[in-house]
């Protein structure tokens, strides 16, 4: 059976080789990359622009973006027909291809995030390493922790005021450089689609910008959601133990901080959301107004076949409803949770409607293809390009974050 045949339904005049070749994993790729870039931009708002209210969420967002980074690569790897050859993108990049830049952009971005985290946590790393070194009768676990933190110091134990000040400067510089790189990482994911001239839906110079804006929206939303979940767990634990968490005076303070951070962050979310929607609508209006040869088939996809996915799920439930939820004064935690989940859903649907929507019409302009996502996998292909492959990609960053958080505590005062 030809690749793609199992999940593609063809209708009317479609040429023999056309299938939905880019399926759910390629929806996940820009979605996850977008979340990475967004989380980093959120953390930079504090480090670069000195928005102090975001201090709490900024450090968490930074560690979270490191946990998300390997996952941005995962869906690409999983959808390759020859996964063992994926490394070729790094060894023989063919630079006229938009994908070839991936190796370089990704490595640079990884270096920036990793070194920024190192500078942010350097004092903590040194203090922990020294504390463990001085401890007599270390257990096996403590020995391992000692080794880990000693290696992480990279031989630099200087935590004088001057050195710490230099660290702060380095963080600021890295965060500043990181913003354009994060935007580039994701903008170029948009370029991968926007530059495909054969695809009438994808080809627009607005694509990279639309991708960046919705990326920031999704990154902020996921950071907010994870932040709320963690804070609620702490509150719950604090309430059960009837004692305050180490970093906070009381249970009420946990709530107070949480609400405060969430309200400020939601304002930034709203700002980028408006930007993203405006650009998407501009693109849609422009296509309709200029009405090129391809508009006829696009119109039938956008207003017909994909109407529910685009206007109800993406714009309605994913954009309009959360917009209203955030605009109503007196934002509560519960309302925020509903809002950010819907925002994340909206961004996911936007990726879906671009990637799958772009393949839902034939090159003949008079046929349609419909993607039926494999649910129960019966071989590697239907796992990779089905529901469970996508879920694996969704879960991985949280597992990675759980591990990273042990080394770089994202919430404790350091």
């Amino acid at each position: 059976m030809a690749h793609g045949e199992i999940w593609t339904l063809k209708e009317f005049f479609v040429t023999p080789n056309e299938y939905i070749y880019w399926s759910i994993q390629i929806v996940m790729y820009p979605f996850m990359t977008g979340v990475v870039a967004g989380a980093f931009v959120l953390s930079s708002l504090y480090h670069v622009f000195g928005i102090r209210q975001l201090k709490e969420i900024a450090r968490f967002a930074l560690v979270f973006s490191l946990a998300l980074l390997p996952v941005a690569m995962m869906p690409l790897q999983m959808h390759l027909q020859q996964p063992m050859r994926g490394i070729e993108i790094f060894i023989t990049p063919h630079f006229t291809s938009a994908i070839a830049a991936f190796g370089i952009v990704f490595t640079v971005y990884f270096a920036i995030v990793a070194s920024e985290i190192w500078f942010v946590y350097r004092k903590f790393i040194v203090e922990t390493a020294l504390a463990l070194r001085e401890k007599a009768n270390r257990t096996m676990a403590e020995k391992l922790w000692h080794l880990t933190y000693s290696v992480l110091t990279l031989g630099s134990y200087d935590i004088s005021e001057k050195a710490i000040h230099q660290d702060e400067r380095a963080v600021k510089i890295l965060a500043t450089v990181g913003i354009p790189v994060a935007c580039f990482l994701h903008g170029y994911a948009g370029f991968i689609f926007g530059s495909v001239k054969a695809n009438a839906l994808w080809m627009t110079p607005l694509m990279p910008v639309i991708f960046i804006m919705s990326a920031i929206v999704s990154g902020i939303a996921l950071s907010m959601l994870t932040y709320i979940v963690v804070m609620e767990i702490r509150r719950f634990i604090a309430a059960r133990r009837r004692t305050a968490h180490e970093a906070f005076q009381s249970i009420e303070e946990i709530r107070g901080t949480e609400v405060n951070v969430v309200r400020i962050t939601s304002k930034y979310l709203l700002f980028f959301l408006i930007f993203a929607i405006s650009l998407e609508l501009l693109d849609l209006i422009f296509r309709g107004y200029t009405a090129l040869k391809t508009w006829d088939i696009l119109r039938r996809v956008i207003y017909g076949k994909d109407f529910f996915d685009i206007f109800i799920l993406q714009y309605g439930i994913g954009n309009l409803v959360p917009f209203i939820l955030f605009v109503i004064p007196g934002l509560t935690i519960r309302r925020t949770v509903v809002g950010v989940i819907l925002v994340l859903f909206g961004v996911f649907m936007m990726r879906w409607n671009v990637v799958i929507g772009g393949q839902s019409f034939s090159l003949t302009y008079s046929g349609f293809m419909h993607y039926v996502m494999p649910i129960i996998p019966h071989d590697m292909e239907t796992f990779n390009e089905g529901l469970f492959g996508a879920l694996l990609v969704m879960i991985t960053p949280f597992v990675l974050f759980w591990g990273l958080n042990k080394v770089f505590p994202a919430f404790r005062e350091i």
Partner: protein
Amino acid sequence: MMKRRDFLRYSAKGVAGLALPISAIEIVSPGEIFADRESGTRWVFLVDTYKCTGCGLCVKACKLENEVPYEANVTRTWVERYVMTKEGKVWADTPKGARDGFTTNKIDLGEGRFQDVKNEEIQKAFFVPKLCNQCEYPPCVQVCPVGATYQAADGVVLVDRQWCIGCGYCIMACPYGVRFFHPVYKVAEKCNFCYHRINKGLKPACVQACPFGARMIGNIKDPNDPVSKVIRTGRVGVIKDEYGTMPQVYYLGLSREVV
């Protein structure tokens, strides 16, 4: 002992000092060197749609010659049928790429549905064979992230089965839908004018199999080549030239309905 600061400083200087002479070295790809040897051949294809009857022998021959699994619903070449009614409606189909020809008058609408068009309603109808256009500016080559697909000096676009990672970007980039994943090799696959045959002086399998001479191959650089003569002096068309790819499969009798 050298201080860390000094070590970093010297390293930076060393790297900067080395970078300057290295930047003078030009990186030349093997392709560029081979391209310099001016090739006397530029393969082109000519399809005479007036002669095509939609028998599908070309598709059958292609599948067997190039070991594209016979039952798999992918093919390097295919034939499209266009039926225009007096009311101005355009129907088109290509059941199984016309591997078995067009055995019924009914138009295949996919998913087991068919459209009956009565003979007296038909204004005109014809067949159009399709294959890789071996573009002068191939977008598939442009987008390949690892350089696994490339254009030979004689214009034919080839795929390196040992190097293709199977990302599918080339399939997305082709405006003609000629690319697909080979069901056995799991890499990008496409028509290459039967490169193994034309280099031995043989004709591509589809050209040889066509009983009506609707398919022809030639060398556009050779002024005495009969195909070259038709393309130079006759009135020929190409498909989807708006993408700037400069397709090299020329058609006689191309109608405006063909996409």
